[in-house]
């Protein structure tokens, strides 16, 4: 790793703390390590996928402090103190999130590589308005690429989840209790 003499840099792995899917976690990793790699390699949460590695495809999308972000573009240092939600945090105690149900029933997932990012982008969209128009769904998912479905089944899945949530206007992906520090 340090053939060019930069071992002193690599040696610095400060403790970085954040809340992940409601649980407090601490990692000791190089500050420039991508959040995506910390999630997959250090925390063994492999639901978040790497597609392009340059913020174009959305496969690695997670929610950080209520924003949708591409975790391939986040140096983990910037996650210090953050609330992070990955696809593993969507289901509650084994009960699938409404979006996961509707993606299943509407054929919104095929090969599965884009699905975690699609779900997180959809959850983000519904958290800002439980009844998005088709144009809003398309804009909300415009940063997530899918090469299987042709997108229509994904849009239908999101619309179906929105229709399902009629009773509860608040989209429950980030419970207040999970936000407590």
């Amino acid at each position, binding site marked *: 790793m340090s053939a060019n003499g930069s071992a002193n*840099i690599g040696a610095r792995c400060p403790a970085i703390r954040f809340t992940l899917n409601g649980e407090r976690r601490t990692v000791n990793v190089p500050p420039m390590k991508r959040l995506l790699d910390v999630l997959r390699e250090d925390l063994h949460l492999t639901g978040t996928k790497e597609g392009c590695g340059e913020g174009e495809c959305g496969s690695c999308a997670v929610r950080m402090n209520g924003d949708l972000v591409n975790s391939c573009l986040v140096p983990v240092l910037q996650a210090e103190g953050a609330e992070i939600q990955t696809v593993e945090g969507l289901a509650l105690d084994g009960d699938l999130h409404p979006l996961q149900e509707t993606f299943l029933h509407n054929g919104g997932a095929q090969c599965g590589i884009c699905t975690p990012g699609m779900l997180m982008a959809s959850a983000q969209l519904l958290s800002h308005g439980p009844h998005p128009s088709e144009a809003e769904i398309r804009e909300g998912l415009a940063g997530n690429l899918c090469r299987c479905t042709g997108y229509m089944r994904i849009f239908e899945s999101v619309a179906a989840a929105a229709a399902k949530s009629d009773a509860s206007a608040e989209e429950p992906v980030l419970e207040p209790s999970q936000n407590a520090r």
Partner: protein
Amino acid sequence: MRGNAELHELVAPGSLAAVLDLLAADPGQWTPIAGGTELMVAFSAGRLTSRKLVNLWGIPDLRTIEVTPKSVAIGAAATFLDLRKHAAINVELPLLAKAASWIGSVANQSRATLGGNLVNGSPAADSSPALLAYDAEIETISVRGRRKVPYSEFHTGYKRTVLAADELLYAIHLPRRFAHHRQYLRKVGTRRAMAIAKVALGATALVEQGVIREIRLGAASLAPYPTRLRQTEAALLGQALTRETVLAARRALYAEVQPIDDIRSTADYRRRVAVNLLEEFLLELRRGGSQP
């Protein structure tokens, strides 16, 4: 080639003052990083040359939007999502709100910052045509103090700016005097989301009794850096909005711009599209359209 996190140092001094001290102590050695939508792409691909980075994300002084009677001051680390959500920007500076909606996708807009877009200095920067059309002013900061430069003088060459090695871009100031101007902004790219501009043109104009009294044209991807089209503006200023004026402006723009051939488009296509965008704006002015 993948980037190796162990080969890069990233520090977070925490406060703006501490960041400025670091830059002053070791000018030119540190690369500031905010939302990472540019630098982390280079890092992932293993082509980030900066070995020492200093974090700006999360510094509150840099992520502000302040509305005063005369201007809207946007902190350099305000994100494009911050801009899109801001009421005064949507109402008074709609071109900037529109440009913010062009940035990548939601996941990019939540991280990409206005200051980062400018400091990166891409000739195709999405926010630049709007800022040029609105006569924006740039405020820089260092331990030596603050200074202001017109945004139209901020870029000095391809990926070069007036920023000194110990300076940060601090804020972008937009005057609140465009409420009665006609306004225009259009980007031409391969797809609406995620695509880098082939050409973009922003414009504001004040028209009285069919005569152009004020005009600003801001262009992306028509020169080595985002730029005002001064010669085209000169061809229009004080002119009546006649068919002849439109033709003269088309000729002026065609002669003024210096686009390039690259993977996204050709110089010839860019020049032709730019001329057509200008004509679209001028014809809207003639019809009394392009209301803000």
